[in-house]
């Protein structure tokens, strides 16, 4: 047994209202730089829908993740090491910018600099890649709220096999939101695909990171990741990915996406797992068994034998305590309501989801029946095969049984808690019907519905004795030392390494006060309002005053 700790996340999809606050705050924190305009470490997809980048789940096309070879061994779907090296000069499976979208800004100067006219001046969209005028045809959430779904959604890969049954007419379809970040997999295929060995999994907390100094821009990680959550920064020529906000997590505060989540649907906590079992679990033959196989890798932090082994593995005592209180462990293993996203990719993802009951509830309510009655809900789960099968395609490699079980638990919680909230005697047969006690059900309700901050986020800080080296405290690299100096000698971003927080601060400042769209100086003067925080007046924000001088 080789005990390792993994920082993991669970998202409760029933509570997601699709407001994209997580995406926006993440973008402001991490990817508001030139070269990362199209990069969304966090994005929210409407399902059924195409996802971002479009149809990324079609692994016959993109060849991401792992496959099990006939001899039972695990192999990268895109081919082994030799094949990877031979195709290194032109990655055959790299999504092009059109599969994401061409990022743009608007030519605001025609508005601010327009003379008085009879007609309104128009700010045309300008590509942030070529700087030329462009037509906006797609973006990160173009099919938000099923927009244009009659045309697009039929191409949703997850509808395969049930396409004839699913109605995409607005009145008859179902829909929910799926927020996605990097899965910080136990068996990351991006790391395995990286020729330079620049992508690594941190031993302490399992966060998967790209070493920017070792990355050489071979782009194999982008194709290797089946979730397409590694992006290529086209300005620096390096791969970038979700960092699980490690500078925040190290000091015990949740990721930006979780902290700012309006629906309070994200849970962060530790999971202890047996690293020796991971490969075996990932190579299990039956895809439907992958969900259980992955859970079998997790170790019960309440088990004294596990605690001893964890201590021997050098996991600090307070981390083991945190693992015991971990909401992620509770949702995955105690209540068994969280499911992994696409276990069939065999990467052992560590951001799990509680599937939404709302498609079922909506249908029952629309028929005029009591949508909080256990009998009605259970019957609806049994009859409404389409949402269930769709969810199963997402979360259990197509096996509807675990999805059924989870939805019934959520339905039971709904009707059990209604009785309590209305002051009626709780009906103990309801939790019993899904194999739980009333007390357990109440605890689950507390965690899912009340969702106190301290219960959602149980994040042990990295250790004080390492604090001098931690990014956010940064006692050995003062902020005032950075910025300025020799930059851009060999292209944007070259030069001394800068702590992440400082780097973001400087870059944001630069962009807010710069008057070019995508950093290059020779692109003419233009203000990027997207990156202007309202403070100060960048050059070009107002037309020059008569007689010279800034407005």
């Amino acid at each position, binding site marked *: 047994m080789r005990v390792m700790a993994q920082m993991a996340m669970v998202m409760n999809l029933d509570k997601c209202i699709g407001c994209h606050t997580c995406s926006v705050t993440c973008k402001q924190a991490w990817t508001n730089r030139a070269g990362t305009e199209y990069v969304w470490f966090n994005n929210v997809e409407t399902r059924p829908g195409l996802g971002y980048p479009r149809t990324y789940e079609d692994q016959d096309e993109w060849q991401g993740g792992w496959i099990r070879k006939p001899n039972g061994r695990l192999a990268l779907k895109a081919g082994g090491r030799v094949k990877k090296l031979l195709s290194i000069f032109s990655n055959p499976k790299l999504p092009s910018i059109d599969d994401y979208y061409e990022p743009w800004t608007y030519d605001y100067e025609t508005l601010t600099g327009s003379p008085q006219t009879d007609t309104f001046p128009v700010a045309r969209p300008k590509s942030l890649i070529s700087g030329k005028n462009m037509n906006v045809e797609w973006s990160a959430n173009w099919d938000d709220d099923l927009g244009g779904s009659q045309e697009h959604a039929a191409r949703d890969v997850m509808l395969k096999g049930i396409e004839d049954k699913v109605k995409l007419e607005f009145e008859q379809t179902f829909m929910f939101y799926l927020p996605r970040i990097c899965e910080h997999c136990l068996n990351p295929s991006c790391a395995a695909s990286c020729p*330079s060995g620049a992508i*690594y999994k941190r*031993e302490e907390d399992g966060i998967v990171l790209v070493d920017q*100094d070792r990355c050489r821009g071979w782009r194999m990680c982008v194709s290797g990741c089946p979730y397409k959550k590694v992006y290529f920064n*086209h300005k620096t020529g390096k791969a970038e990915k979700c960092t699980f906000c490690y500078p925040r997590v190290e000091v015990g505060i949740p990721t930006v996406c979780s902290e700012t989540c309006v629906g309070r649907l994200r849970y962060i906590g530790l999971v202890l797992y047996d690293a020796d079992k991971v490969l075996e679990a990932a190579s299990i033959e039956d895809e439907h068994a992958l969900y259980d196989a992955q859970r079998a890798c997790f170790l019960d932090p309440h088990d004294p034998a596990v605690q001893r082994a964890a201590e021997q593995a050098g996991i600090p005592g307070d981390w083991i305590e945190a693992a015991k209180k971990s909401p992620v462990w509770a949702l995955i293993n105690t209540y068994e309501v969280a499911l992994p996203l696409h276990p069939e990719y065999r990467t052992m993802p560590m951001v799990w989801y509680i599937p939404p009951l709302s498609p079922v509830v909506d249908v029952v309510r629309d028929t005029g029946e009591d949508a909080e009655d256990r009998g009605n809900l259970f019957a609806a789960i049994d009859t409404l095969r389409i949402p269930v099968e769709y969810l199963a395609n997402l979360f259990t490699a197509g096996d509807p049984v675990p999805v059924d079980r989870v939805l019934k638990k959520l339905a039971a919680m709904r009707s059990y808690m209604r009785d309590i909230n209305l002051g009626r005697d709780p009906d103990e047969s309801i939790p019993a019907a899904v194999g739980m006690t009333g007390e357990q059900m109440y605890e689950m309700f507390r965690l899912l519905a009340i969702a106190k901050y301290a219960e959602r986020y149980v994040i042990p800080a990295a250790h004080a004795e390492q604090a001098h080296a931690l990014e956010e405290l940064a006692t050995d690299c*003062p902020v005032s030392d950075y910025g300025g100096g020799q930059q851009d000698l060999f292209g944007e971003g070259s030069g001394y*390494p800068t702590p992440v927080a400082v780097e973001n601060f400087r870059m944001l400042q630069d962009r807010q006060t710069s008057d070019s769209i995508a950093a290059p100086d020779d692109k003419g003067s233009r203000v990027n309002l997207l990156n202007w925080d309202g403070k100060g007046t960048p050059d070009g924000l107002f037309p020059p005053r008569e007689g010279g001088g800034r407005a």
Partner: protein
Amino acid sequence: MNVLLWVIVPYLCLAVFVVGHVWRYRYDKFGWTTRSSQLYEDRLLRLGSPLFHFGMLGVVGGHVIGLLVPRSWTEAVGIGDHLYHYVAVVGGLVAGAMALVGMAILIYRRRTVGPVFSATTRMDKVMYAFLAAAIVLGMWNTIAGSIFSLGGEYNYREGVSVWYRSFLAFQPDADLMADAPVGFQLHALVAFGLFALWPFTRLVHVFSAPVGYLTRPYIVYRSRDERALGSAAPRRGWDEVPR
């Protein structure tokens, strides 16, 4: 003049090449990348890039054999001049043509595809000029010298190669180069210019060829403690107090 061209300049370029790489690696690991533009354009790159790179691998291999293996060695294993010549010309033409066609496609792409062109630095353009000149001159030498024998017979294995080995052994014999045809002289000079530029261009990615990938374990684990990530050590956290 001979000493300047065939002793001083080559050693100067070699020194810049070596010191430049050490300096760049220490100073600018973050900028050490292929600067791929595949995200912008895929169709032309898919054709041009493998053609160019595999062609260049062949070209480099041919140069290693041609420059470093003395004539006496190949004769000792029974490879006569004629056979050697035949293999070298055919191999050189194939590899050179691949590199040349690939490069033409890539330069065309760089010039015509808007985003790729705007991502091109001044250093890239200078480097392209030297690289293209070196390849064209090399092809010219192969075609004009070895096939049509313009300007008389010249066996570079008796001239340029010997000079090159003497150069590497730090006992340069400038006269050998001075006697070589002008095509070879130009090719060598342009190549040395390219070597001097090398550390300051994207060509540094050649030295990152990820052969280690073949043997390393798939998943890399690293401890958070490893702070030696940066190319420069973090600077001290205090300012000197003027006394």
